[in-house]
């Protein structure tokens, strides 16, 4: 009887911890090799043939198609520079310099990775349609209510995320996130 109880304990520990940690690592653990620059995160490994098993499992679960190293790289942000989650109840300002790239796009998605419908019929900006500051930096307002200048409308959602995609960029040639400069996301007000 003792023996059976011991076996049961071992099996219980093995299955609960094994399955839970696997599920957690795939779903929330983030992939290894993430490059974080301020509030922006990129997973350059996801778009390479040596993607780690966690990245492959995550891709299989979501059905996402990552950018290949020869195409570009994507940085996503779910928090502002103070660490609070991005929410449709607040307005944000994205300002600063962007890394060198032939082309970039900035897109807003809801928490499930879907585009958000809005009256302005705009869900993204690209590098050639934007009005720049005299120093070449960018300034984009992200909010539900219209704003002067470059305005990226979002829907009144609880959580959203921003994805910066850099195409044909030296960023993919390797190297860490040390010298990459990304614009800051600051909250400019809430309702």
């Amino acid at each position: 009887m003792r023996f059976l109880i011991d076996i049961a304990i071992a099996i219980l520990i093995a299955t609960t911890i094994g399955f839970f940690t696997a599920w957690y690592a795939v779903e929330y653990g983030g992939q290894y090799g993430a490059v974080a620059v301020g509030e922006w995160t990129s997973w350059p490994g996801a778009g390479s043939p040596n993607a780690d098993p966690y990245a492959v499992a995550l891709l299989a679960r979501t059905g996402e198609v990552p950018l290949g190293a020869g195409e570009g790289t994507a940085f996503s942000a779910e928090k502002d520079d103070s660490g609070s989650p991005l929410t449709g109840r607040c307005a944000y300002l994205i300002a600063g310099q962007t890394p060198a790239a032939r082309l970039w796009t900035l897109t807003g998605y809801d928490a499930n990775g879907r585009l958000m419908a809005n009256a302005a019929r705009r869900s993204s900006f690209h590098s050639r349609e934007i009005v720049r500051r005299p120093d070449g930096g960018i300034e984009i307002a992200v909010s539900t209510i219209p704003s002067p200048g470059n305005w990226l409308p979002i829907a009144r959602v609880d959580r959203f995320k921003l994805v910066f995609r850099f195409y044909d960029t030296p960023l993919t040639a390797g190297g860490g996130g040390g010298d990459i400069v990304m614009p800051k996301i600051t909250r400019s007000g809430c309702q």
Partner: protein
Amino acid sequence: MRRTLLFALGGLLLAGIIHIAVVFMVPLFADRDAWAQMRQFGRDGRFHPLPVPEPGAEPLLSLDPRMIYSVCRFSLGQGPVRIRASLPNDFWSVAIFDRRGRNVYSLNDRSAERSRLDLAVVTPVQIAQLRQDPPPSLETAIVIELPIDVGFALLRVFVADDSLMASAVGSLATADCSGSL
């Protein structure tokens, strides 16, 4: 008590093995992965333009709405695959993925150094045969050797503004991934 602890330790070891096994098996049981979702666009062996990503009607998750896309699922079992397209002079890129959605090759217009895309996807075994008797049509192609048997190619073309949409769609329609070299 000591024996129970020992069993608990064994359970932990087993948990590690289960963890690794589960992570490796997730892709095998995923029915919504990129490969499976591309089935909806049409039959294998040819390019299918994806609808323009719009709110509420995205063909795939997390696509860039400033690009238009075309996908082709292909198999190298019947021989090499040739991927050809005449594309605009602006940014475009092509990425090749294996069955599990791992990116195995990618190229953009600047590294291709021309607006014509011409790739020959070949397995290591096929390339050995091609070396013995190289077909003349291969001279213009970029030959890439990939150790995969099936995969898909995703072609993306940048559309700077709506006035360029028609020509971008037209150039995407020239994409072909037929098997003939």
